[in-house]
């Protein structure tokens, strides 16, 4: 009896702490969203209001109509993210399959290289990649971000895919071979449909990594026309080096929208994928 009482009050305590923690964590985002619906005058009126006195759309209209940079940044982010995924997904699936299920000379070296790369901070690659891109005229182009992002996200992707392919029972592969399927068909038609969760994990963490990447994008993309959201929005300062918070809160809300949707849909795979990758590394 007593134990049950104790248990119940413990659960209520946990629930209350859960609510407090969630609200605390979300409060900056909620604050931005609420502000984006405020009239500009209200934003700069002391004392501040938390709940908008009146909900208005003006800030969003300003972003869409009066801020030509915003759609540029937005579509650059989309293009770079999709471009990176189009390279990372097939390349990590193919390499993960060979490294996870086949024996061949050179395999050990590739694996060693992947583990070593995961331990090295990206900063080390920044300067030589800048020089390479300068020589190849890739600065200020989408491809100038896609190629390094693909390379930097491949090691973790390959580790995850390698682990995924290894979990498939070998009978499936054997029976495909007996049926006369060649290696490519076995990989693509028999094995890959069974590692969709692995591919989902690689998709979500590559997506997140590319969407938020700042250092490389800031260094390689100097021109506004090539910048992504993570680099472009902070540079939208008005005179006196401060930000116009009305417009900016609307722009921030819009730029967090796609990534939040992807994240909430694929959350399970995100956690699973990073765990798999990091346990191995």
């Amino acid at each position, binding site marked *: 009896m007593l134990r049950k009482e104790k248990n119940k009050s413990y*659960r209520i305590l*946990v629930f209350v702490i*859960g*609510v407090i*923690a*969630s609200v605390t964590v979300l409060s*900056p*985002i909620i*604050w931005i969203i609420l502000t984006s619906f405020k009239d500009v005058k209200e*934003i700069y009126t*002391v*004392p501040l209001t938390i709940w908008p006195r009146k909900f208005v759309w003006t800030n969003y209209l300003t972003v869409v109509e009066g801020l030509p940079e915003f759609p540029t940044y937005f579509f650059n982010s989309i293009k770079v993210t999709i471009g990176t995924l189009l*390279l990372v997904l*097939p*390349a990590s699936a*193919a*390499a993960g399959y*060979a490294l996870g299920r086949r*024996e*061949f*000379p*050179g395999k050990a070296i*590739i694996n060693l*290289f992947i583990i070593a*790369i995961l331990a*090295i*901070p*990206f*900063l*080390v*690659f*920044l*300067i*030589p990649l*800048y*020089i*390479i891109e300068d020589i190849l005229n890739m600065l200020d182009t989408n491809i100038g971000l896609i190629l390094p992002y*693909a*390379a*930097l996200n491949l*090691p973790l992707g390959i580790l995850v895919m390698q682990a995924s392919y290894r979990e498939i029972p070998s009978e499936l592969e054997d029976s495909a071979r007996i049926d006369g399927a060649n290696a490519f068909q076995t990989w693509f038609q028999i094995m890959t449909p069974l590692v969709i969760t692995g591919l989902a994990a690689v998709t979500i963490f590559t997506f*997140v990594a590319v*969407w*938020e990447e*700042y*250092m490389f994008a*800031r*260094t390689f993309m100097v021109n506004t026309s090539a910048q992504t959201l*993570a680099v472009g*929005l*902070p540079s939208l300062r008005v005179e006196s080096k401060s*930000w116009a*918070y009305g417009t*900016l809160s609307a722009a921030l809300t819009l730029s*967090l929208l796609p*990534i939040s949707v*992807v994240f909430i849909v694929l959350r399970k795979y995100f*956690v699973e994928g*990073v765990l798999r990758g*990091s346990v191995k590394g």
Partner: protein
Amino acid sequence: MVKRDPRKRNNFIVSWLFVLPAVLLMGAFLLYPLLSALRISFSEYNFVYSEKPVFNGLTNYIKLFQDPHFLVAFKNTIYYTLVFFPLFMLIALCLALLLNSKVKGNGIFQTAILLPIVVPLSLAGIMFTWIFSQDFGILNHLLANVLHLPNLQRFWLGDTQTAMNSLIAVGLWKYTGFGIILFLSGLKAISSDIYEVAKVDGVNSWQNLFYITLPNLKGSFSLVGIWGIIQAIKVYDQVVVMTNGGPGTSTLVLYLYAWKNAFSFFNMGIGEAIAFFTAALAIIISVVFKFVLKPEKG
């Protein structure tokens, strides 16, 4: 040998065809830059004036330790790590232990707490610059008008006393949720049989925690710990957006100083030397961590 057996040779070619796209990408954009980076770190290389790096041995590394700004950046990075890391581990562990029970709304709590991991740090930097701002920041407003503690109001990012701690708060906001999720999956992996046996033996909750749960979490401690420390050592994004190293040099960190050397002063050699120094720091700490928290074999 390989050439004489056609089946073996075939296997070799097919396997390499599978890994070829990944190997080409990583070779061109990781391996070659890594070797080039090493060479640059041992060279005098001003990107604007000189065509090619000129080998100068260990000069860059020696110069670093005579450079007061580098020592400040090193000290600031260590300070960031020493404040960030214990708070990160403690909050993540406590919330993970609490959320490990079957409570209503658990899934929603976890999604909410993990959400900042997808908010780009540079954009979080804008959000928090505003929250911390002197006149129109919500933090000062709450302190003065809601909590009635106007004495605690600060120019958070403009004050050398509080600027770094404000940046640490942003880092904690962004990364702690991920630590919680990693700890939670470690907690789930502990077999419930152990707790059943303990229950029969009449073990109380505190004993449960200290004699069963925490010792069984060693693997997670090493995983979360290494991840957390690396996030601290490579702090960069929110620093650039919120303070850019200032006021003075109070928030100058290693990543930022490396970047400034390379892309503001065009001293690629010095920049790369700082990068390798940071890499060595991260690798040594990870290895020590792994060694100390090695799970006992049993």
